[in-house]
């Protein structure tokens, strides 16, 4: 469903990611881990067609992002770190707007919008103005806009950040259901290692712009806890690449400044 081949992204002289390659099969839920500024968001932005890679290529939902960007984007649902909401819109109007942008046929628009609102537990606030919603509900609206066109691939950048424990459990349950029952492929980035253990089958660990670990969760468990693996890999990457570490810190600042 997703195939990244030797993705490299440079911002001016700074290399944010270098030679990142991996594949994700249909229905898999993959946790994307790494320290802040490691290149997670950059990789996700490349996969969603927001940024073109400096080198390498990516295929999403069977479409090459450089050759068929529209088809690839149509097959992708994306929740950025900050949900791209219009605070003055009503929840239902907003989700409907995103459905239109993603070419959901007019005849199916209402039913798909209702379905997405239902999946995310938004029926009761469907007619509320987004500005008046709590952070948890805004995050759910962000998720609803990512799934409304029923994409084959979901790319979620920290979908549970800033939510309370109950909301986190609900979102995790939703993600698990989307993959298990509807066969959607999910990549999600997170800092919460327990989250990966709760919903992911596979882990991608990126540090200093390079992919360090690509393994199934059960295989990783044999090497110790996820936390031990994380710390070990990040530290060994850092010691091997002290210069790269400095460059990455600078690159992280650049990534956060845009858009």
């Amino acid at each position, binding site marked *: 469903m997703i195939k990244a081949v030797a993705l490299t992204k440079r911002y001016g002289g700074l290399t944010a990611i270098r030679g990142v390659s991996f594949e994700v099969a249909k229905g898999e839920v993959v946790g994307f881990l790494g320290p802040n500024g490691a290149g997670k968001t950059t990789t996700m932005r490349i996969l969603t067609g927001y940024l073109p890679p400096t080198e390498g290529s990516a295929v999403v939902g069977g479409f090459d992002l450089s050759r068929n960007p529209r088809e690839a984007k149509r097959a992708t649902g994306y929740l950025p770190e900050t949900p791209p909401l219009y605070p*003055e819109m009503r929840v239902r109007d907003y989700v409907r707007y*995103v459905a239109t942008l993603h070419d959901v046929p007019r005849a199916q628009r209402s039913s798909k919008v209702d379905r997405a609102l239902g999946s995310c537990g938004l029926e009761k606030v469907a007619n509320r103005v987004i500005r008046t919603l709590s952070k948890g509900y805004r995050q759910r609206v962000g998720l609803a806009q990512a799934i409304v066109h029923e994409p084959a691939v979901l790319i979620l950048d920290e979908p549970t950040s800033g939510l309370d424990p109950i909301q986190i459990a609900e979102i995790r349950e939703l993600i698990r259901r989307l993959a298990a029952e509807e066969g959607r492929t999910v990549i999600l980035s997170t800092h919460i290692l327990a989250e990966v253990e709760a919903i992911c089958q596979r882990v991608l660990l990126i540090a200093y712009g390079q992919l360090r670990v690509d393994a199934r969760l059960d295989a990783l468990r044999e090497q110790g806890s996820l936390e031990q693996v994380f710390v070990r890999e990040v530290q060994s990457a850092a010691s091997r690449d002290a210069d790269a570490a400095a460059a990455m810190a600078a690159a992280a600042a650049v990534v956060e400044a845009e858009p």
Partner: protein
Amino acid sequence: MSHVLAIAGRELRSIFATPVAYVLISVYMLFAGFIFFASLGMFLVQLEQIQALGMTNLLEQWNLQDIVIAQSFSTFAIFLAFVVPLLAMRAFAEERATGSIELLLTSPVTSSEIVAGKFLAIAGLLLLITVLTGLYPLLLFAYGDPELWQTLAGLQTLLLYSLTLASICCFISALTRSQIVAGLVGVAVALMLLLMPFAAESSQSETMKAVLRWFGTSTHYEPGLTGQVRSEDLAYFGIVIFASLSMARAAVDSLRWR
């Protein structure tokens, strides 16, 4: 096309979700109304004086159309140099500041569709302003007989001129994340274009003179306001709108490359 309409519809609704558009349109209508009725009052006083002095040969040229309508339209054009940039400044700058541009750029939507949608929304707003402006001369039709076609030509020129400014400001708005910067630069550019023909007068070289005159917006809207629709002016508006929107599209494209 459904993308363009969806983007334009959302943009229009969000323009009217904040008081900015209401305030701007109200202030514009207030000033425009003041200028219009002040010049009408002046016209009537001068008319009486001319009659009292018996200069009947002057009465030929002393008509409602040229003195009241064309001249107040000419003042409206100066107001629009402030109003249009302030209406258009949000187009892209706001979406870049809030990050919602990420939604547009990761949707299966082309940069041309995004720019067309944004421009269409502002165009709708400017059409509304033009229709409201038309209400003032409409009052004169109730009491006198101004030239209908000349008045319509004047309104059409005001609309084309506003669209030209809006397209330039769309481009400026795509270059920055700050609405304020986009608005101020927009007003500055609008005023510069307005003043170019005056700068042309003081220029030494003939070529420079012609260039400055061609670029000036007032060179191209003044004839239209008095009812002369010239193809060279229509071409000017068309060329500037097309060029600005193309540059705006390039600017949106470049957002994908950072």
